[in-house]
């Protein structure tokens, strides 16, 4: 059994067949972390004692034959902006270097109650500000496929740890592409759910109207299994839809004959790297082979996405980071890193009197136009497919001195957050030299995750990219 290929399904099967105990599986992952994470640096905190304690308790249940919990004995790790009671949570920032939260957030608690084993807290860009992982105050996580390359961000550790087989699943957040970008750079499945599907309570807020709470898995099935646990109203997040879906695996294996897939023409422009374009075109052919109807569509306001995003997001960030005043907890504000300071200054400016109308208000108005682009398009097609990044993963340091260049890597991901729609990033192949993953994203109308899983599953089973694992 290759641990790097373990999924939720295969682990649960192993428990049913009594192939191993929860403690066995947990130790396996902890050992791998010890072996590889000094290089990969995906974890900020490893909770070994805690994990073994959880495993022991679950093994009691295993002995009694009770393995009914939906994620029984599944190890997992959380992006370090998910608040975990009694366990160091840092946001990968020096401001919270030794912060111990007083409560568990909704997603943390639901996953805990579903039977998971907490392995630790994962590295990310500090405060989730970044597209490469290089903004972590504790040193960046590395891409397991080639450690000279960035794994993508901001959920850098979350993506890299699943890719490297240091955990079968991990949590992440996507505000402007922070799940989809690292997923596409690491050959993992990254889900950005609809805004308002999964509770943000207990996740450190970055941009309140854009943050989406999702996760990384090796397969589409695993992604749906996790969403079954995390989604739904909780009484603590006022922006959640009150209805609850019954089962995200429903219809997943139906196939996609007759499904209309739109390709936004603005997303496949000249500016894409050759191999990214190539892999996307191959993917389109695969979808056609599977029986989907491909339609060209237009999202005319795509060009305004970065401008709108980089006004709304820093504005909300500047307000959300105000509570880190060093009085009740945490270190002084002088401990903020450069990117955080940049965004606080930008956001304070765009909200300030005399500029509010020209920036924030204007951006919110254009936001409505972007939302309308998607609403109109989804009247013509069932879902959209597009690349996630216009480029391949880049080398460490390549964009660090040019924040604006870094921001432009979000060009294909941000309008999804602006509109609040869901998007699933799935593996779509590799570049040749060096071998680096390339992903594609499948976008749908609000709350259409079931359809995204259906489309993603068909593509995954046809291409089997998920079976490839990096050599560590």
């Amino acid at each position, binding site marked *: 059994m290759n641990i790097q290929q373990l999924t939720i399904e295969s682990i649960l099967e192993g428990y049913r067949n009594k192939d191993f105990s929860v403690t066995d599986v947990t130790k396996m992952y902890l050992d791998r972390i010890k072996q590889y994470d000094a290089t990969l640096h995906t974890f900020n905190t490893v909770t070994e004692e805690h994990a073994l304690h959880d495993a022991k308790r679950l093994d009691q249940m295993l002995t009694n034959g009770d393995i009914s919990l939906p994620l029984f004995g599944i190890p997992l790790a959380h992006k370090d902006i998910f608040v975990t009671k009694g366990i160091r949570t840092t946001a990968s920032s020096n401001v919270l270097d030794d912060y111990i939260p007083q409560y568990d957030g909704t997603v943390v608690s639901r996953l805990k109650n579903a039977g998971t084993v907490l392995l630790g807290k994962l590295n990310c860009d500090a405060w989730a500000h970044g597209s490469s992982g290089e903004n972590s105050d504790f040193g960046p996580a590395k891409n397991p496929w080639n450690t000279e390359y960035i794994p993508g961000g901001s959920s850098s550790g979350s993506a890299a740890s699943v890719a490297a087989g240091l955990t079968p699943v991990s949590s992440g957040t996507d505000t402007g592409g922070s799940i989809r970008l690292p997923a596409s750079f690491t050959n993992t499945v990254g889900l950005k759910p609809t805004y308002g599907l999964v509770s943000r*309570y207990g996740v450190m807020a970055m941009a309140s109207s854009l943050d989406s709470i999702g996760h990384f898995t090796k397969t589409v099935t695993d992604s749906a299994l996790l969403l079954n646990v995390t989604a739904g109203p909780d009484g603590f997040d006022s922006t959640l839809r009150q209805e609850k879906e019954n089962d995200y695996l429903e219809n997943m294996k139906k196939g996609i004959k007759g499904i209309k897939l739109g390709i936004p023409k603005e997303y496949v422009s000249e500016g894409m790297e050759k191999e990214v374009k190539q892999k996307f075109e191959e993917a389109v052919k695969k979808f056609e082979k599977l029986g989907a109807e491909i339609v060209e569509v237009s999202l005319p306001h795509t060009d305004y996405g970065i401008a709108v995003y980089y006004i709304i997001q820093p504005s909300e960030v500047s307000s959300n980071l*105000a509570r880190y005043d060093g009085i009740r907890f945490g270190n002084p504000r002088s401990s903020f890193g450069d990117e955080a300071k940049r965004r606080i200054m930008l956001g304070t400016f765009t909200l300030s009197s005399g500029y509010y109308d020209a920036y924030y208000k204007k951006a919110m108005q254009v936001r409505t136009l972007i939302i309308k682009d998607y609403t109109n398009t989804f009247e013509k097609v069932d879902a959209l497919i597009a690349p996630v990044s216009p480029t391949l993963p880049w080398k460490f340091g390549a964009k660090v001195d040019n924040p604006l260049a870094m921001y432009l890597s979000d060009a294909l991901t941000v309008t999804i957050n602006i509109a609040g729609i869901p998007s699933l990033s799935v593996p779509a192949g590799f570049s040749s030299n060096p071998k680096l993953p390339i992903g594609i994203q499948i976008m749908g109308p609000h709350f259409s995750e079931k359809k995204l899983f259906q489309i993603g599953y068909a593509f995954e089973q046809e291409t089997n990219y998920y079976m490839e694992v990096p050599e560590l």
Partner: protein
Amino acid sequence: MNYTTIIGLEIHVELNTNTKMFCRCSANHFGAEPNTNTCPVCLGLPGALPVTNKKAIENCIKIAQALNCSINTDSWFERKNYFYPDLPKGFQTSQYLNPFGFKGYLDIKVKDETKRIGITRVHMEEDTGKNTHTTVDGEKVSLLDFNRSGVPLVEIVTEPDIHSGEEAKAFLTELQKIVRYLGVSDADMEKGNMRLEPNISLQKEGEKGLPPYKVEVKNINSFRFVDKAIQFEEKRQAELLNNGEIPAQETRGWNENKNETVSQRSKEEAHDYRYFPEPDIPPIHFTDSEINELQSQVPELPIAKTDRYVNEYALPYYDAEILTREKSLADYFEDAVQDGKKHDVTPKQIANYIINKKVDSEKTVPAELVTMIKQASQKVTVDSSTLTPIIEKVLSENPKVVEDYKGGKVQVIGFLIGQTKKQLPEADAGQIKSTIESLLK
């Protein structure tokens, strides 16, 4: 030089809901141990999110309705961003562009004249924690208590229609009555659940438009001090203006020990709060029928009730005003009036009795009160064979009083009459008096 005082008031009313504005913590913080009514939300901890207290908003709307405001059926919260140790999130969740209530008015009576004070806005927000500066072990410290953080506050802003300390007091008294009638707050300035800041400036005679400055005064915690602070400012500002100076636009603190206002900080540049709509709370929509339902829950208010008592019960305004100061007393009075109808006891009689005899409405139910009045009004001539022994007993039980009376303190007869009446409530005071006088001759 003659000046007209221009005053606008900003009042904060703390609501008496069970829980706070955005979390389930108890809102009842008065006297509680510090930092015991807190949670991640009202402490502004990482990851916390607000959930709105519907009752608080309904109470805010009722206050707005009681102040004759137009109601925004589509409204939302906004973030007011600033840094202060007692503000854990670094922003206060408040309202800016579309407050729940706007463009209302309150009529007040000052020296028998009715005056209309405009209400600019009535909006919903949350309270901050409490910051206390003190010395602990010889060290100057600031202590923070977050029990009050997140408690619902309604902010009421008036137009600059008030022109004296007396008018300000009349307005505040009426507002306090209204809020108490609604049952939404104790509105007790000493307890801090009603706070106010007057903005004061002086307009030169003949000058049109508002003066080119205004002074905000903080730290006033009673109606009496409002009047004093305004008077102090009137003097201070007039002196400056007489000297050809324009008073500085600033915030001043009322010092109740020195009876003066002291400059606190310059208000030259209005603080930029960078307001933007609160993304964590979806906009709030009320249907017309919901608004009507809330309006129907607004009881008859003090002014209307007072006027009705004058017209319906032929009471003098002075009496009606006393009876309507508290809704519970007014209700008690009217219950007694209803009962009185069956026993030929008039509203005027009941009013007099309540006002003059300090009735304990908790101990005496309205029906009992009516009975007492009826008895008192019946001039029953008691047979002297019944009356005299009782009086003689009273006299023998109170030898000192009798001595005082005989010594010239004739007013003590009142005590003796009272003691007699305790045992013979139906007896006429006049008859008792004359009997005592003749016995003590």
